[in-house]
């Protein structure tokens, strides 16, 4: 029994081993070796996921799920982490404690995988803590005032929401006598207990996934952290939160009213995120608010759970699209600079990077035939199929708002004549741009590769 369980856990075990080796490499002061180990480990874990992709089972007494969702989640989270490692290398390569950052990132991703496969309340708590602790340290890495303040804010928010979540989940435990999500069905007809646990879950995972009103830490943390860390947090830990939310809510009867509650949060999150992004002049803050808005879109798939077969494919497709285009946009910010004026004439001076940025931004808006369009297509289809047409309508109206946000970056890129500023595109960053662009364009033209 134990052996069977462990064989299903090969990707996770491999990743844990990789993280250990990376710490050893850091102790040897060999950051390049550490990164290489990390990339190899992530690649191996990705490959090891493929054989169990179609599995539909659980391990360790139902607490950890090896199913289609967790499998595809790994295929999004692991390559996303690899890209983030490359970005870190390009941004802070050669500086002190670079290797610790690499190792921490892989640790956090391990927590993210746990969230994505969680079949049990305690595993969600554990995943939130594991991703949280590593993330605080990552944000604080620059050790200046801004980063320290950002990490502090991040930590306090995390501690409070984590506490609320743990406390609230005890209601579910009390009601069902079990910590397994699979047992939640017995709560039907006990609305107060259902609501208490649900609220707790939304607080804890809403914080991680940057949903309004638990988003306050996001702009500050992203701005204080290195750009590559902001990119990582905006993609990997966020997507993991929505995978965890999906795992928990799959077993909760829809009559409990959670689809409506989450629908409202989705509407507010999308709208607030884009409205706030409209007035930002710092690119990292702008992308932070944009990523908050995208969190609202993620929820469209969650809301459709149990009512539409398209919910899970839509969630995974959108997560993959979001990972590609958002990492790509952050990578361009890494090249161009953190302020809006840094983009002036950038597209004319550097046509290829400019073109990539346009592709990422239009993909974030949801313009075909880019990957983001097919992500949103699935989300809208799932929401409509589940009977939430109003939510799809709010989603499309917000897409227009989003276009306004993203064109604020595109316009200066081509409006002013290019100031020929030499930019540094180290090899790892070039690889990130090439891969994310290929995914954004390629999966857009041929989404069948992904939508199986």
């Amino acid at each position, binding site marked *: 029994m134990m052996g069977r369980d462990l064989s299903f856990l090969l990707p996770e075990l491999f990743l844990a081993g990789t993280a250990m080796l990376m710490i050893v490499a850091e102790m040897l002061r060999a950051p390049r070796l550490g990164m290489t180990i990390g990339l190899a480990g992530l690649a191996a874990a990705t490959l090891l996921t493929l054989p169990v992709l179609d599995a539909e089972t659980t391990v360790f007494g139902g607490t950890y799920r090896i199913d289609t969702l967790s499998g595809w989640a790994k295929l999004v989270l692991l390559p996303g982490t690899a890209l983030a490692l490359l970005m870190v290398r390009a941004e802070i390569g050669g500086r002190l404690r670079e290797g610790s950052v690499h190792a921490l990132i892989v640790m956090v991703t391990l927590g993210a995988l746990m969230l994505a496969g969680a079949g049990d309340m305690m595993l969600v708590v554990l995943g939130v803590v594991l991703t949280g602790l590593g993330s605080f340290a990552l944000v604080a890495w620059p050790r200046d005032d801004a980063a320290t303040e950002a990490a502090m804010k991040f930590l306090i928010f995390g501690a409070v929401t984590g506490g609320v979540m743990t406390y609230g989940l005890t209601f579910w435990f009390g009601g069902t006598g079990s910590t397994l999500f699979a047992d939640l069905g017995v709560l039907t007809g006990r609305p107060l207990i259902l609501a208490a646990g649900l609220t707790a879950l939304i607080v804890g995972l809403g914080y991680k996934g940057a949903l309004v009103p638990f988003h306050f830490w996001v702009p500050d943390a992203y701005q204080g952290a290195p750009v590559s860390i902001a990119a990582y947090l905006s993609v990997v830990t966020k997507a993991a939160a929505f995978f965890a939310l999906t795992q928990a809510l799959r077993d909760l009867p829809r009559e409990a009213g959670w689809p409506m509650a989450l629908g409202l949060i989705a509407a507010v999150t999308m709208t607030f995120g884009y409205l706030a992004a409209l007035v930002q002049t710092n690119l990292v803050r702008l992308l932070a608010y944009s990523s908050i808005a995208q969190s609202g879109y993620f929820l469209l798939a969650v809301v459709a759970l149990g009512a539409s077969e398209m919910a899970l494919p839509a969630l995974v497709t959108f997560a993959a699209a979001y990972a590609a285009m958002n990492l790509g946009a952050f990578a361009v910010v890494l090249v161009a600079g953190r302020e809006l004026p840094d983009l002036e004439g950038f597209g004319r001076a550097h046509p290829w990077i400019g073109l990539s940025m346009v592709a990422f931004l239009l993909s974030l808006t949801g*313009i075909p*035939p880019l990957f983001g369009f097919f992500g949103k*297509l699935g989300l809208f289809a799932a929401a409509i199929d589940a009977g939430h047409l109003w939510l*799809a309508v709010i989603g499309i109206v917000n*897409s*227009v708002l989003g276009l306004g946000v993203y064109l604020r970056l595109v316009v200066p890129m081509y*409006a002013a004549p290019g100031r020929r500023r030499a930019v540094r595109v180290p090899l790892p960053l070039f690889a990130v741009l090439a891969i994310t662009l290929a995914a954004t364009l390629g999966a857009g033209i041929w989404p069948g590769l992904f939508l199986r």
Partner: protein
Amino acid sequence: MPLLSIATLLPLLAGLALMLLPVRPARIVHGVSIAATGATLLLTLAIRDRGIAPEGFAQLEEAAWIPVIGAAWRLGVDGLSLPLVLLTGLLFFLSAIYSARIGDRPATYVVLMLMLESASLGTFMALDGLLFYVFFEVSLVGMYFMIAGWGHEDRQRAALMFFLYTLLGSLPLLLAIIGLHLASGTFDMRAWIGTPPLGGTAAMLALVAMLFTFAVKTPVFPFHTWLPAAHVQAPTAGSVILAGVMLKFGTYGLVRLPFQMLPDAFAAAAPVVLAFGAFSALYGAFAALAQSDLKKMIAYTSVNHMGYVVIGVAVAALAAEPRIRTIALDGATLQMVSHGLVTGALFFLVGMLQDRAHSRAMGDFGGLLGRVPWLGWAFILSAFASLGLPGLAHFPAEFQIFLATFNARPWGAVALLGIVVTAALYLRAIAIVFLGPERGRGRGMPDLDRRERLVIGVLLVLIVLVGVMPGIVLDVIHRTMSGLAG
């Protein structure tokens, strides 16, 4: 040979090839542009040569795309799309010739134009709902960058407004397409036409969404406000493509989607559509009358002419007799083609005038006819065509539309008043700009050169041909429309 796919992809591939060239001198770039659009025009002529089927679609081309959700690369033509495909091929070719003097970032400009051509041809030929939507939206991106990059004084604002407004306009269509897909399990437009999947409230919701989209695109009052700004600020070729090709997405879509796929809901809503069309036609005419900027004036006459198309489609849904329905649809489709030719010519001419005098204000000119007879007579002929003079392209189209309207809903014919107003505004413009003593900025202005005469000459010949022998276009249209109306 899959001519339709080749025609759709050829411009795009030529554009991609251009992007990969290490050095891109203007001459080579424009040469590639003319060659690619010319080859595409020949391909569309070859498609015309193969002809259409008496019923449904002809020259079907299919390839797998996203099998899980039933979306595929499906192309085909019928009597509705084929004339528009030919119009697209022609206008892009002429635009490429006209644009050959653009020296500001010519490669990017040409790549955008070629991308727009692929998107336009794809929009008209797609028989797959998702593919249609993809092409429909890609055209927005191309046009946005075209206006923002090569437009006039206030281009950034106009481009932004164009993109935001038309994206807001097209997204409801996406919801409607998703609705059709959820009800049928496929994106095949032939299946949606064969057995309309939606009924009742769902059909009404989808109809409202589609009507909104196409009203913005066409544009119909009160959703037209993006149009004057976009047209005035766009570069000349951009205006030609926008008016000549992209406005037709709206009316083509109106026939292809709501009329064919939601027939019952559309018939129920047709009186409202007719009212909007009639009001829009009148509004466009009066608004044009109030303009002193030539380009803006022509832009508003587009609102007027496209209003007639909407009237025609609405009447086709309202009329009881198949004969009247056919006449209305014939007229509406022919009107799309005529408008493309005539307004294309007018925008070219205003662009040529602006190139010379750097002004579009009527008051800046006077007595130009003696100075630049080619430009002057070409403008006068196009203006007469635009006001619906018999023997020129708009007459047979508008005649059929009004004939059907009188038969089915006589009150809709109030829009006839628009023709009178259009006549007045064109005569006024001609009198101010071209007649009388020479004054203003016209002094020393050269007449059209050889290339410009070629561009305009082709359009004028076609305007007269369609006016005198409408059968050359109408025969194809009629074959399909008599099937649709029956």
